[in-house]
């Protein structure tokens, strides 16, 4: 078997069914799926037992143990050469595992990453270029450069046992980044730069729990004794606060980002929002959000269509 896919989940049956579909659609790899059910009390257990797919195994926790522990538990039960993690709300392209495994095997690397897009309500809202391998190794200790959170990286199971499991002290934010730092210390990754995964942004995901990320970052700073790039960090946080509509906190974060030297970046991020608020205040007609039409958004739309009703399809 090539890959074991570990999916921790808790009370998100509707999203989980789409995520599972994208995991089970993986092509040209021999894989198993291990779903770790964190004491869901919605219809998740029913959904899982109704699947009837021999490739899916379910581990159930009667009490929630947290994201890191759930992933680690799933990884203990893995049997394949490679380990991949997938959050219960994210989506994978059908060739994601195959291309990561072949890129890593060809280059003789022990872990691999890919590009990612962010989707929100059926729109692609972010499609930045993926970082290069050099950049990942150089910048990871300072900033979480890998997009897509926990669903991005695949790692050899041997390496995972060696480098260690997810740190259970960091839960809900930063635990993925902390493991990637250790992986980058272990060795170079192989990168598949096309966006082969989609991170979903919605009110109930971890992504929103921004305060915890600040705390986690401080923990990581002490754990690894690394110089965190607070300028980029604050800008990144400001972006998240803006998305949640916490305008003043976002402004505060941008000011801090600017103080750490990210003046242009903070300004470029804030300006469209200032404009939007001004237009609203003046009672002008609201512009529809821009449809991203860059190369990465187009590539991602081509495979996303299968799993998700995509609203801005006309641009593809």
């Amino acid at each position, binding site marked *: 078997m090539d890959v074991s896919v570990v999916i921790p989940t808790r009370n998100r049956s509707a999203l989980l069914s789409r995520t599972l579909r994208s995991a089970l659609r993986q092509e040209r790899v021999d894989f198993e799926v291990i779903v770790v059910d964190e004491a869901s009390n919605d219809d998740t257990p029913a959904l899982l037992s109704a699947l009837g797919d021999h490739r899916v195994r379910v581990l159930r926790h009667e009490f929630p143990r947290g994201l890191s522990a759930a992933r680690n538990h799933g990884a203990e039960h893995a049997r394949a050469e490679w380990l991949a993690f997938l959050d219960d709300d994210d989506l994978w392209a059908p060739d994601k595992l195959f291309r990561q495994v072949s*890129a890593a095997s060809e280059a003789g690397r022990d872990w691999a990453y890919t590009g990612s897009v962010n989707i929100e309500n059926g729109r692609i809202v972010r499609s930045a270029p993926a970082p290069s391998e050099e950049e990942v190794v150089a910048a990871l200790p300072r900033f979480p450069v890998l997009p897509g959170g926990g669903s991005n990286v695949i790692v050899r199971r041997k390496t995972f046992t060696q480098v260690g499991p997810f740190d259970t002290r960091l839960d809900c934010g930063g635990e993925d980044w902390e493991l990637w730092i250790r992986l980058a210390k272990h060795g170079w990754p192989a990168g598949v*730069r096309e*966006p082969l995964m989609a991170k979903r942004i919605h009110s109930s995901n971890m992504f929103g729990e921004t305060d915890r990320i600040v705390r986690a970052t401080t923990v990581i700073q002490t754990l690894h004794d690394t110089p965190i790039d607070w300028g980029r960090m604050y800008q990144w946080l400001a972006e998240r606060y803006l998305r949640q509509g916490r305008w003043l906190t976002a402004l505060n974060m941008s000011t801090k980002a600017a103080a750490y030297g990210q003046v242009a970046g903070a300004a470029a991020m804030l300006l469209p929002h200032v404009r939007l608020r001004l237009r609203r205040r003046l009672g002008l007609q609201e512009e529809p959000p821009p449809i991203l039409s860059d*190369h990465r958004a187009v590539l991602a739309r081509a495979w996303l269509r299968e799993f998700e009703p995509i609203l801005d399809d006309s641009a593809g």
Partner: protein
Amino acid sequence: MTEVSVIIPTRNRSKLLELSLRSVFWQRNVDFETVVVDDGSTDDTPRMLQSLGDRIRVFSHERAQGVSAARNRGIAEARGEWVAFLDDDDLWAPDKLELQLQALRRDDRRWAYAGAVEITTDNRILAGRPPASPETVVKELMVRNTVPAGASNVIVRKEWLPIPTVFDGSLYHSADWDLWIRLARRGPPACVAKPLVAYRFHPGSASLDLDGMFSEADEIERRYGARVDRSGFNQYLARLAKRAGWGRRALRYYCRAAMAGNRRYVTREFLPDVWRLCSDVLWSRMHRLGIAQRSRPPRRDPHRLWKEEARLWIDRLVREVPLQSVK
């Protein structure tokens, strides 16, 4: 052993690809193989490729993965000592590989480029000028993409390519520029100062994504600490917009170029650029109204000889291969 692997990524362009393939097959005095990577074509490309039999090696991506992934696949399958890239709509002069290999051996270099001209969909020459010298190319790569004609121009030692990622699939317009920067860090290129490559400009096509080009230039700056020449880049985008017939956008880019530019551009070139743009737009309006003739008097062209040299081999290639319908 095969000397050169020619790598051609293609997608839904069987007519143009046929001409490109013929420009590969007429390469002289070089032992080469042709690797075509079909990136999920849905037209008659697979059939056309099959009809060529064992003259080419074909690999297909079931689903389109983008041109970078296709080129990387081609590299992975290549058996040659050198790899040369050709896009499915571009053309090579018959002595392109031969002259580049000579230059590489003469200068003991690991990668090489040549001169180029730009052609239209019906194989007329649009523009072209001699390329910069290798020293200038290396020095100015951090300022602009100094290698003309994109990927179709370059030949490089296979084992010398950066692995695992050669072409970055998260870039589209600048994947080649990104690679040239990394190659230039390993060593300087060799150059053949002759028009050996013709690359095609598709007017008004959807692929003319000017904003995308801009954001990728930002990414190059961020990645390599480069300082892209904003003024020159805006001038380039203005020229593209002008050619695509987007007068107002062209004007906007010229203005941006002037704002980002040095005094020299503002005082000497900005007004003539705008004047030329306005007169072009006026001329085409007048032509549409039936007042002016189609062909306007030609401007003085300092690179006329360069274009003539390219026209000789392009005409020969096209005449020997009549193209009925080009999309």
